[in-house]
């Protein structure tokens, strides 16, 4: 795409979400942090909170980008996977650039993709060669340390035929950072009978704007399990990733857990396009409002015979302020597409609380138990320690801020 076209796209607003004036942020590549040692203790604690192991002991590889600078990735020698800065990968593999760079996400989609495409490339390039199954998860930490930083990330993940990988991405900002913006473009390519499990946990500062732009292309028999967790106060997060199932029997499953405390605005969705026969997809979202605002979108597009897909947007209002707006959408382009959705938003039914109280739990414990059950969406691929951390966070949250 020509530079002129990208320049023109710099004024193009996103399809959803509040428009953001990017000129108010610092779009420089100055490395404010040279190594992990330069990160504050509070910042490190937040990284651990979003699932990052600082010693990376139980990880196959570890990537860290702070602001717009990528620290030297750690890759264990024995793992047959590649992990490097996307910019470096582009120099090393020009043939892959032709095939994969900006092919799932159009660079002129909106101003956020355009600014990322125009500047020097950061983010991670991951490739797992055909048939290789990586046992330990790969972790990627995307962190903002500098006030008013505009962070650009362009990730490319290629899982070749028959390969498998589990990726955990933890995104956070240093507690000293008030205002910043994160632009994350991710392009995932899942080969025939390959499997990618991708878990992303967000814990951004209160005044950080977040605009991920992701897309996934899945070939025949490939599987994509995507989990997204955002439980902290985030001023303005908007994303609506696209997943295209383009090979027979491809499967996509997207789970998200969203909690919006007062002051948070989350506009989170997912679009799955089922383009060949025998594809299956499931989108499951559980949202909780404790005073903030949630727009929960979900779209299934059935374009081929014999596809099956289901969408759930269920929300729990634990506050009299804030809102949840659940917007499920089903688009069928063939008579033989089986698509369904379920959307429910409401309070916890008093009968459910009483039922548990009759079994000996007090009101707070009963509420917490129901909330935990509500959020129990069977997140596959989550390491036990991380699952435990999420449960703990939920517990403190529902005891403190429950009804």
């Amino acid at each position, binding site marked *: 795409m020509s530079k002129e076209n990208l320049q023109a796209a710099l004024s193009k607003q996103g399809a959803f979400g509040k428009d953001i004036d990017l000129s108010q942020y610092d779009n420089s590549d100055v490395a404010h942090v040279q190594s992990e040692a330069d990160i504050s203790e509070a910042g490190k604690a937040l990284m651990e909170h979003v699932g990052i192991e600082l010693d990376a002991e139980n990880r196959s590889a570890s990537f860290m980008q702070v602001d717009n600078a990528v620290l030297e990735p750690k890759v264990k020698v024995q793992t047959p996977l590649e992990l490097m800065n996307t910019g470096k990968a582009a120099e090393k593999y020009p043939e892959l650039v032709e095939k994969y760079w900006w092919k799932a996400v159009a660079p002129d989609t909106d101003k956020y993709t355009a600014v990322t495409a125009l500047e020097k490339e950061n983010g991670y390039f991951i490739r797992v060669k055909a048939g290789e199954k990586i046992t330990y998860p790969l972790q990627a930490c995307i962190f903002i340390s500098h006030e008013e930083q505009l962070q650009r990330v362009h990730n490319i993940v290629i899982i070749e035929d028959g390969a498998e990988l589990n990726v955990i991405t933890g995104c956070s900002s240093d507690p000293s950072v008030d205002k910043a913006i994160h632009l994350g473009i991710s392009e995932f390519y899942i080969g025939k009978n390959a499997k990618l499990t991708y878990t992303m946990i967000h814990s951004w500062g209160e005044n950080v704007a977040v605009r991920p732009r992701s897309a996934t292309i899945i070939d025949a028999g490939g599987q994509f399990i995507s989990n997204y967790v955002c439980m902290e106060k985030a001023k303005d997060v908007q994303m609506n990733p696209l997943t295209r199932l383009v090979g027979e029997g491809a499967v996509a499953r997207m789970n998200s857990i969203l909690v919006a405390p007062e002051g948070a605005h989350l506009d989170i969705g997912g679009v799955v396009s089922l383009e060949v026969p025998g594809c299956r997809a499931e989108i499951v979202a559980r949202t909780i409002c404790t005073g903030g605002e949630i727009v929960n979108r979900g779209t299934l597009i059935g374009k081929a015979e014999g596809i099956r897909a289901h969408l759930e947007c269920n929300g729990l209002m634990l506050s009299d302020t804030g809102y949840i707006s659940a917007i499920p959408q089903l688009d069928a382009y063939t008579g033989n597409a089986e698509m369904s959705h379920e959307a429910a938003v409401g309070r916890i039914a008093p009968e459910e609380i009483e*039922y548990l109280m*009759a*079994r000996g*739990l007090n009101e707070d414990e009963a509420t917490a*138990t129901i909330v935990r*059950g*509500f959020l129990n969406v069977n997140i596959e691929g989550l390491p036990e320690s991380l699952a435990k951390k999420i449960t703990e966070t939920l517990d403190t949250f529902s005891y403190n801020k429950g009804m």
Partner: protein
Amino acid sequence: MLRIENLSVAVKGKQILKNINLHIAPGEVHVLFGPNGTGKSTLLGAIMGFDRYEILEGKIYFKGQDITEAPCHERARLGIGMMIQRPPTIRGLTLRQMITICGATPEEVEKMAQWMGLSDFLDRSVNEGFSGGELKRSELLQLMAQKPDLLLLDEPESGVDVENIALVGRAANYILQNSGGESCGGSGCDKGCCSLNCTANPLAAPQKSGLIITHLGHILKYVPSSHAHILYQGTLTCPGGDPLDILGCIGQSGYETCVNKGCRRIRK
């Protein structure tokens, strides 16, 4: 065990129960008969302490303690256990977790679920898609784990198929007999039952107390009951009569005649 004095209860502002007096001693199981809509479930709900039952006047004492104002969970912790007639589904909370909340150890969970034919339901959301009979068995399973000193059963047979009535009856009896899981020696054992299949006399005097709502009385074949009452138009009548006599009277003459003329006289 339970003493109710002059209790009047309203639901949504409408008075349902009038001046109820009831005393259940330790080891006594009382039966509550009465036409639909007469307030039987309201009485059980008021004893359990559910919010929608508003106490207008009167007192409820349990183990000598005034619980009239106590929240539901405190009553449960004191030893009151209730089978809910239409229990809600709690999605994402498994039956296994629910039984654990009720107080069962992991071994008890497996053992008791097997007795109740619910082993395959343990990892399903509690009550989700359960049939009428499965709901009753699930409720009894939870109560087995809870080990209450006062068991409140609201129509334990309704929706249960013929084959499972015996199971429901034996389970209710187990909860009433169980004195804490002591292994029992089988025939003649009076220390309480160690399993649902115990050969001890099924109608031996119970260790615990109970209050059971029933229409058809099938449960009485399996559970030893000593006293019966008819709740009619919000008031308790025939206090303390023999359960099978009163059931026979209702069957012969209907509730109204039975209440107006007095059950015992009719039998004679």
